């Protein structure tokens, strides 16, 4: 039995996580450049988390309250695992494509459940590296901890996500057993992600409400410590994890392991009764709408319009794609504005300060450059064209047998990305410009440059997606979550931030028109170059789609 579970876990982890990266076309044999980029990306995140932890622990050490940091890290790990796995558990346990292949195999329900649970556990370790392991290693370094501390940290790191994960899985298992969520699967997935973003937004608002003094930070940590303690009855592992690390208590560590292991096996036993009930109900196709087609359903449309409409429909109707590729890009400008308003003390204060901005930035160069920088940052989260070909899965070959030139189809596929990158930011900036009474000309110039950037970025995205398409996925989540190409998209944004930063540093003495024309030239040349590549090398771009 254990061997079967281990074997299934290995296969599921391999197909869900490892292959998701390595089987991406073009990444079969990892190139040195790809490995370097990967190391840089992980390294960057590690450094950011490390610096933050370093500063925080140092501040707490001034008050001799550094152990509060351990409680906070454990709390964050428990909450983040709980929060993350509520959504991923639904997708991996119930909505995953591989269920159709696993159900007919002679596995006991608990064996499949355990295999999937282990996959979720490995997933949670990825975020835990940043949220748990690195902060605790920094803590160990600063407090000159012994080797035992590091050993305990690794054990706690491996064990702490188990109970919150089981709780998420149990919630999903109960819900799916009694409610036919499959009928509202799309709605569930969309709402869950909106909820996640709303919570992040609240945290962002809370954390950005002004400067934090060391005393305020200490008060905050005491609050967090209090919160952690109030959760002890519900998450006894949280208590034992903190105690094990703070006091290096072997008893607490053993209790942490024992509770987690017992909970794991109790859950596996329960799954034998409950798991298949929800999965079987979920794998059947739904009933059909009886609404008949009528005359208005047979409307002729222009090819371009029809193609773009198809792209929008496929993008927005698939909750995974909508929530992963579109929603963050739509929400971010709104979050930014709220955070900004909160930070500056509301719209009234803004009105009072707007004249100061006008005095400081008489020529408008600063407004222009800052707006572009913000827009480039905001567009980081729209992943529409970078996944446009991959999202079609194996049906992407459709592009190759219909009588529309391939490059034209690529351009049509880029249109949703251009609009979804530009329009939300444009609307938000119109609002902010009016609120701040910004001069019109720099705002208009910034929007023109941003529009060209949005076009260029979508071209760049689709070129990368054609070169490294990700057609073979077991779950649509992998198109975004395990798609390394998105990193190239981010790099593109960061590279294009350079002209704006240079404008800010070196060109602020030049007239606005000159700064605008320089930026316009850079973005236009790049965008035209990318367009030219798509138009003339489309046969090359089509080669990996078959």
């Amino acid at each position, binding site marked *: 039995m254990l061997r079967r579970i281990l074997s299934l876990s290995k296969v599921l982890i391999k197909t869900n996580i490892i292959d998701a990266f390595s089987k991406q076309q073009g990444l079969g044999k990892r190139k040195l450049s790809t490995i370097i980029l990967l190391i840089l990306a992980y390294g960057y995140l590690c450094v950011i988390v490390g610096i933050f932890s370093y500063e925080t622990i140092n501040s707490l050490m001034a008050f001799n309250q550094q152990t509060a940091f351990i409680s906070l890290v454990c709390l964050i790990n428990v909450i983040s695992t709980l929060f993350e796995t509520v959504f991923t558990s639904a997708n991996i346990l119930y909505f995953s494509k591989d269920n159709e292949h696993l159900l007919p195999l002679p596995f006991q329900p608990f064996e499949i459940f355990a295999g999937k649970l282990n996959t979720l556990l490995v997933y949670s370790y990825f975020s835990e590296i940043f949220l748990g392991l690195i902060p605790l290693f920094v803590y160990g370094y600063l407090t000159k901890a012994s080797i035992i501390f590091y050993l305990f940290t690794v054990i706690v790191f491996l064990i702490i996500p188990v109970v919150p994960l089981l709780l998420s899985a149990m919630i999903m298992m109960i819900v799916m057993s009694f409610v036919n969520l499959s009928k509202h699967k799309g709605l569930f997935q969309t709402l869950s992600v909106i909820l996640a973003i709303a919570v992040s937004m609240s945290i962002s608002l809370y954390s950005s409400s002004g400067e934090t003094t060391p005393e305020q930070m200490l008060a905050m940590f005491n609050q967090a410590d209090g919160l952690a303690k109030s959760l002890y009855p519900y998450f006894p592992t949280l208590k034992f994890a903190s105690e094990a690390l703070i006091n290096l208590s072997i008893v607490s560590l053993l209790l942490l392991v024992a509770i987690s292991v017992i909970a794991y096996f109790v859950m596996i036993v329960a799954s034998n009764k409950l798991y298949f009930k929800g999965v079987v109900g979920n794998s059947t196709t739904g009933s059909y*709408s009886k609404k*008949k087609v009528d005359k208005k*359903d047979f409307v002729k449309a222009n090819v371009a319009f029809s193609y773009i409409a*198809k792209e929008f429909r496929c993008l927005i109707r698939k909750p995974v794609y909508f929530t992963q590729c579109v929603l963050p890009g739509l929400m971010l400008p709104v979050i930014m504005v709220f955070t900004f308003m909160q930070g500056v003390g509301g719209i009234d204060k803004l009105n009072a300060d707007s004249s100061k901005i006008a005095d400081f930035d008489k020529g408008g160069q600063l407004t222009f450059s800052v707006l572009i920088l913000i827009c480039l940052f905001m567009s980081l989260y729209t992943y529409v064209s970078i996944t446009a070909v991959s999202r*079609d899965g194996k*049906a992407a*070959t459709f592009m190759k047998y219909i*009588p529309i030139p391939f490059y034209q189809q690529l351009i049509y596929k880029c249109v949703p990305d251009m609009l979804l990158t530009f329009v939300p930011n444009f609307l938000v900036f119109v609002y902010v410009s009016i609120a701040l009474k910004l001069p019109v000309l720099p705002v208009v110039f910034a929007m023109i440059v941003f529009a060209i950037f949005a076009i260029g970025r979508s071209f760049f995205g689709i070129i990368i997606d054609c070169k490294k398409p990700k057609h073979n996925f077991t779950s649509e989540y992998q198109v975004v979550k395990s798609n390394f190409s998105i990193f190239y998209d981010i790099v593109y944004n960061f590279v294009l931030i350079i002209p704006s930063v240079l404008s800010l540093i070196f060109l602020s003495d030049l007239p606005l028109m000159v700064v605008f024309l320089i930026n316009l030239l850079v973005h236009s040349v790049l965008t035209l170059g990318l367009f030219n590549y798509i138009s003339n090398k489309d046969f090359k771009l089509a080669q990996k789609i078959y």
Partner: protein
Amino acid sequence: MIEIKNVSKSYTKGIKSVDGLNLTINNGEIFGFLGPNGAGKTTTIKMITGILDADEGEILIDGFNIEKQPMEAKRQFGFVPDSPDIFLSLKAIEYLNFLCDIYGVEDRENKIVNLTKKFEIYDVLNNKLESFSHGMRQKIVLIGALLHNPNNWILDEPMTGLDPKSSFDLKEMMREHADEGKTVFFSTHVLEVAEKMCDRIGIISKGKLLFVGTVEQAREQFAKEGSLEKVFLEITENA
């Protein structure tokens, strides 16, 4: 008419998935393309439809070269791929309308209504393809391929998932289409279908075309008394 002239394709250096294929499918003919798994059937079909480029040789569809005149060539055929899982977020009617827009189909309402009623799928056109069974999706993809009334039908395992009535209707339609002087090229594993339907068959194994001709010719040449199954096994096992 489909002409395949000395076409080869390799995915891995040194191993030819399709090796020097020469084949002409004439107008007015139903041609069955047979072969074991991994023989090169789908690769050949992908090259005919422009999904894959041939390493060597050329393919003409009604005289248009698929690589040099792709748009003209692609207008000459309707293609049913081996998997009907296409744009599942679209409603069936949206998918069919989309294809009508691409191919500039006139009188789309009549064509869609007639074909969908024939395949008994008219009543569910307002539903998303993801809610359909495999067979229903197959019907929609098939209808989509026929809407622009192409001269050449290229069908990769078209009967898979179809219910007996739809399968029967499709076979009738294939016959009618060929009788109008047009071409049907299809791959299948169901030898009975090939035996009953095809004017000629081609058997491919390990990338090489081993036999082209009528079923009777195959019997004469290989296993005089046997079924097509026996002939097929003899040809492919001796390859």
